[in-house]
């Protein structure tokens, strides 16, 4: 499932981006313009709910962001170099707030993998939901 963009009222951060199953496939230029990102919520609770019924060896995931509007590659040997990496352990909701905003002058693009290394290419075994509030 690709990221869904919803425009809401508000001058500060009027864009809500939700990716219900964030994975190694990059979501590119999700706001369609330049702006600033103010909040990222990473929901990895799916892993806990299904841990007894599905193979789930993941211990954490990493949401990786790059300021680029095109030619973004998620994981793998040719992965784009992320300029912001946020760690989230499995089975929790982890929220990051950037009070002044994380400015992107080209475009907001991101992907999610289970290893910290840039070349990491494994998507989370179970769904990871990434919610972003941005301008």
């Amino acid at each position, binding site marked *: 499932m690709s990221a869904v963009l919803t425009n809401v009222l508000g001058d500060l951060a009027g864009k809500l981006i939700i990716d219900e199953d964030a994975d190694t496939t990059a979501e590119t230029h999700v706001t369609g313009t330049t702006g600033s990102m103010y909040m990222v919520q990473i929901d990895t609770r799916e892993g806990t709910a299904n841990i007894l019924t599905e193979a789930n060896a993941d211990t*954490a995931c990493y949401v990786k962001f790059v300021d680029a509007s095109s030619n973004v590659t998620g994981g793998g040997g040719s992965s784009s170099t992320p300029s*912001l*990496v946020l760690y989230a352990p499995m089975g929790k*909701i982890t929220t*990051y*707030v*950037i009070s*002044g905003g*994380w400015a992107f002058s080209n475009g907001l693009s991101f992907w999610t993998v289970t290893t*910290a290394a840039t070349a990491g290419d494994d998507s989370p075994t179970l769904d990871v939901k990434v919610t972003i509030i941005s301008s």
Partner: protein
Amino acid sequence: MAFVTTKFDDATSFKIAHNAQITNSVTKNLTGGPGVLHSVKIENNNNAAVFIKIANAFTATSGSTAPDWIFSCPASSTYTYEVPGGVQFDALSVWANENAVESDNTTPSVSGNETVKVTIVTG
């Protein structure tokens, strides 16, 4: 310059760590063990961007360790990353590079009165 880590009162587990001029030299096991990361403030008055890299590990090597967190801050900017509720860690090893790429081992290119200050709050 090295990090200075200070504990508050024994009644709380909070610690604050400050580095008035962070470099590519890795500060290993910043808080002396596990804890919860609450915030990272970067005051960058250098004329180049800086990337604060943190490994959830007792040790790390700038230029080869894949950081668990990369917090970026543009030139001449102050960014504060806050984690409401916190995120648990086993240990924090912290360093800074001028470039985001994992293999970069470049220390921030400060000159004159330029500084890159980092303040980290943990629980």
